């Protein structure tokens, strides 16, 4: 398949660039998140490269989602959640940004498809734009088409944009959610197990979408499916009990991991 080749080629290119020149979109230092005093992740230091897909793997309860959600202030809603340490986006501490601005620039796609049930397909895609700042009607049409196209949904829905989003299948709803996220033009997109509620065909469509998105966006994906991590990502981070155990090129993680814990997990000998 062409995709695998391209990944290798691109990885090779990144490899040759000296460490200084690599562009990092997200960097965390000593990131610790606790819920009511109980630490969920502890001292996470990670640098995520621009225009790559980075997957986060690890057993349930290891803090993958907690880490992901700290990157766009999603813990702000949870009572008793405390975030310590620094998170930098484009070399700037996220506390220096406005919270809504961070959320706009760091989009998120959730585990269960969650389109707005009261809106039709079109309105779902433009919801983020309209409620941030007004835009002209003709601009909106263009954005809707582009976003749906990029999310791989345009061909299926172009004749029924005014139909309720709830009329779509689960997989289509998830791609609609991706389109909705793309419409506000973020730089980083976080995927929190985006395919775990979907069938294999929808999953492969979304994985295909991820591959195309890499050109424009930095992608971080949490997944329980190691094959998926191996298929879609350039870099993989292995979390265990709230710690970042190993973070390296995906191929390295799956073929010659440095840590014993990682090896046990990726080979299924875990526990």
């Amino acid at each position: 398949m062409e995709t695998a080749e391209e990944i290798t080629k691109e990885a090779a290119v990144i490899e040759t660039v000296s460490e200084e020149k690599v562009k990092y979109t997200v960097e965390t230092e000593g990131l610790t998140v606790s819920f009511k005093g109980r630490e969920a992740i502890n001292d996470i230091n990670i640098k995520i490269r621009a225009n790559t897909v980075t997957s986060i793997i690890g057993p349930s309860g290891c803090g993958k989602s907690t880490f992901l959600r700290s990157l766009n202030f999603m813990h702000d809603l949870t009572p008793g959640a405390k975030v310590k340490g620094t998170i930098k986006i484009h070399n700037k501490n996220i506390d220096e940004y406005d919270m809504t601005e961070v959320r706009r620039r760091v989009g998120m796609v959730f585990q269960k498809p969650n389109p707005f049930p009261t809106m039709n397909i079109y309105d779902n895609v433009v919801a983020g734009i309209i409620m941030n700042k007004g835009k002209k009607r003709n601009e909106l049409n263009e954005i809707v088409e582009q976003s749906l196209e990029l999310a791989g949904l345009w061909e299926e829905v172009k004749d029924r944009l005014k139909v309720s989003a709830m009329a779509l299948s689960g997989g289509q709803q998830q791609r609609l959610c991706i389109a909705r996220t793309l419409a506000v033009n973020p730089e980083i997109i976080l995927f929190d197990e985006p395919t775990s509620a979907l069938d294999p065909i929808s999953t492969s469509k979304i994985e295909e979408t991820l591959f195309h998105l890499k050109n424009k966006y930095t992608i971080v994906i949490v997944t329980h499916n190691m094959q998926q991590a191996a298929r879609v990502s350039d870099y993989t981070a292995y979390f265990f009990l709230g710690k970042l155990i190993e973070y390296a090129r995906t191929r390295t993680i799956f073929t010659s991991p440095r840590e014993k814990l990682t090896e046990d997990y990726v080979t299924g000998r875990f526990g």
Partner: protein
Amino acid sequence: MEDYYLKVSKGHTDRRKLKSRLMIILCYVAAAMAILPLLYIFFYTTMQGASSLNIDFFTELPKPVGESGGGMANAILGTLILVALGSVIGIPVGIFAGIYITEYSKSIFANVIKFVTDVLSGIPSIIIGIFAYGLIVIPMKSFSAYAGGFALGVLMIPTITRITEEMLKLVPHSLREAALALGIPRWKTTLRIVLRTAQSGIITGVLLAIARAAGETAPLLFTSFGNSFWSTSLDSPMASIPVQIFNYAISPYDEWHSKAWAGAFVLISLVFIVSLIVRLATRNKFSQTA
């Protein structure tokens, strides 16, 4: 062996089927007990009231004892004004309190409001009337539409608060997260995503609260009091259908009794129409089919 097994299992299933049928019958009986009184009230009121209903009833003022004819026009108008006044107070306060309780439930204050709302919904409506009497009628030294509307508004608050709270709770948390993750500010998320998703339920609740307030007599007895003449000024006593029904019903005159029935019929019809509008307006609004 096989025969034996079948025999036993057949007797067993028969018993279970019988039990199931019995339970279903009990459900039907319970449903009938709930619906029959309602139907009875509706038909009886219609039979008694519709006969003395005519155009005059809607256009004429009440006539003194002994004179035939006349209507309840001022009371119908009065009820509309009082309910409107009550809605102006009850709907915003109720809805915003409901939003506060669900969306900002972290604070202790929200729990206090929730508790107070529960207590308030259990207070007899006549107590609310006395409250409005003490708060508005005494300082103003006059019965007034303001006092009546205020009492109805206070009466509506707990119902609307609770239904708003329940409906907002039904909106999945993931929807709020989805909106916030798009960079939509929290207040806009609440108003334009969460509230909109819950809107049909909230509208239903609001209209039910209005319908209930329209039929309340006790809070109006010593607030808006009643009036035999046209009155549209809000700082003077105002007639209302329930109070007029009450006054007519306790009178010794047959003519007035039939007027009371007609009033009851109009009131029930109003509630019925409101409920019907709710049903039609919210039906299949967010249906899943294309």
